[in-house]
């Protein structure tokens, strides 16, 4: 709790400083009607590493954990006339899997997730954007052992990402992104590296 109070105090102090700093500047009027607004669709693919500990329980189960896999994602962003952008992100992540052997029985377990996140983003340096989102993960267990079971659960979660954007033309950009997905209730988390193609499919003033 002491740590939380410290950071909350620090945060409030910085925000107050920011407000004071902003008020000390001369007003800079921007005509928002001239700023282009757009919708951007981002398609990504890359590599995912499950970043939380996985211990196969109980220990008498013999098996090894596979925590690396491919990942695909889709993000729809609205770029308004102001800095804060918002959108929705989904995709498919393979958190981890393992095969087990108990006596004569063998089996496997796969845990996957579909993120369903509201995402906010802001450009912090030229071509560099940060993203933070919240929402849920639809987690799915596929268990092959004593039959086959597919079982699903919604889990609250967040994501944080940072990306570098390289424009190809007025509508298309290439992005490189590092992202951290975190499903709270199941303590599942993954670190992703993705290449993204961003398509500004709708633009207006």
């Amino acid at each position: 709790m002491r740590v939380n109070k410290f950071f909350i105090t620090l945060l409030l102090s910085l925000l107050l400083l920011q407000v004071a700093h902003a008020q000390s500047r001369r007003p800079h009027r921007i005509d928002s009607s001239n700023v282009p607004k757009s919708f951007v669709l981002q398609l990504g693919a890359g590599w995912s590493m499950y970043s939380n500990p996985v211990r196969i329980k109980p220990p008498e189960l013999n098996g090894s954990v596979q925590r690396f896999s491919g990942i695909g994602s889709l993000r729809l962003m609205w770029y308004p006339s102001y800095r804060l952008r918002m959108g929705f992100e989904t995709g498919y992540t393979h958190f981890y899997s393992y095969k087990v052997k108990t006596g004569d029985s063998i089996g496997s377990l796969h845990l996957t997730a579909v993120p369903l996140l509201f995402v906010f983003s802001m450009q912090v340096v030229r071509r560099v954007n940060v993203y933070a989102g919240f929402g849920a993960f639809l987690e799915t267990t596929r268990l092959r052992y004593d039959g086959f079971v597919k079982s699903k659960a919604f889990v609250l979660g967040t994501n944080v990402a940072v990306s570098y954007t390289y424009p190809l033309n007025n509508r298309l950009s290439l992005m490189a992104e590092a992202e951290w997905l975190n499903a709270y209730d199941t303590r599942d988390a993954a670190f992703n590296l993705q290449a993204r193609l961003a398509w500004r499919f709708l633009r207006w003033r």
Partner: protein
Amino acid sequence: MRTTVIILLLCIVVTGCRKTYEVIMPDTSRWELFNNASPLPNVARQPMEGVYAITEGQGSFGEQGAVKWSHVIINGDTLYHLSVFFGKDIAYLICEGKQLNGNILLNGYWRKMVSTATGLVQLTIDPTGGATALLGGQTPASLTIKGFFGNGQAVPATPLSLTYNRKLNSSPSFVIAAHRSGGRTSDLLPVSENSVAMILKTPEFGSTGIEVDVRFTSDGVPILYHDNTLNLREVQKCGLVGPIENYTYQQLSTFVRLVHGEKIPTLREALDAVVYQTELSFVWLDTKYTSSIAPVHKIQQEYMQKAAALGRKLDIVIGIPGEDQYNQLLALPDYTNVPSLCELETEKADKLQSKIWAPRFTEGTQNDAVAAEHGKGRRVFVWTVDEPAFITNFIRDGHFDGMLSNFPSCVAFNYYARQ
């Protein structure tokens, strides 16, 4: 602005980490004197039971404590524990007893359920304090338990002294029923809720009965589990998500362990433990399913017969918490012969001929309604009472026959210390 955003994100990441609470059970094996002592004769135990005045240690444990022995059978051996239930901070201490050179040694730990506070306890009854009479199977003229307690793993150094005051209140029909087979995992107990280990642990907390949560696996095996889904509040991380009813018993038994490492028990395993390993006199099978009650009724009958064959007085009742379960029980041809506990209106308890009516504690003591049910020959249990002030008031002012609580030690103190 950029700096603020970056710091904001860093703050979210850093402060978003959840604080985890834990209670590290004190290691009670380090008292050399106790390790070299001999077993305590059975005749010495019962005369020790009573309400004691706390003459040293009041600041930590209050003014009085109720001392009670309990036992369970593990691998054919009977294990005895002496528990002291206190009136402050839902505190209790649990000890094993031995004798050495005419002294009675009590070695164990204390815990406060309002916090994570715990520590070691090392107590002695010396020959002049009553040990000579107790070891001879007699009730001593005066009885004093003296020793020390400490915090965490520290060697006990703070004085604790208890002096016998009077006998325990003992109207034998009152049931101290512990929730989720003995207590909640979230209360940082050393064993998991709804486990066989908890069933064997809960007599130390003063329980004389238990409530367990019954669900079915996908292949129809009744098991003990509280929540709708597999989650980290109840089980260790295993990769299985979703409703527990999606999985077979074999799958759960192989892949899933409760928080403290136990297997999810079947209802049969739980009742085996109750009948053959404890002296618990009451089991409330809380119905967490909406399918037929017949399979559980069959097991209920079987284990009541097993208890009767051992000469045990054991009531096993099927809980009726809602309309679905009420209708399922009505669907049985001999539903009036099914021992049940009805949480619904008294008219429905009448229709089912339930043995017990169980109103929620928020309805108050309802002494008139309780008296009316007593008039019908029906017992009344109140659930789930966890607030110490309510427990005190309900035991002092109410006429209930039993109380369901996550803190059976608090119920035990209020019940046994009642004058």
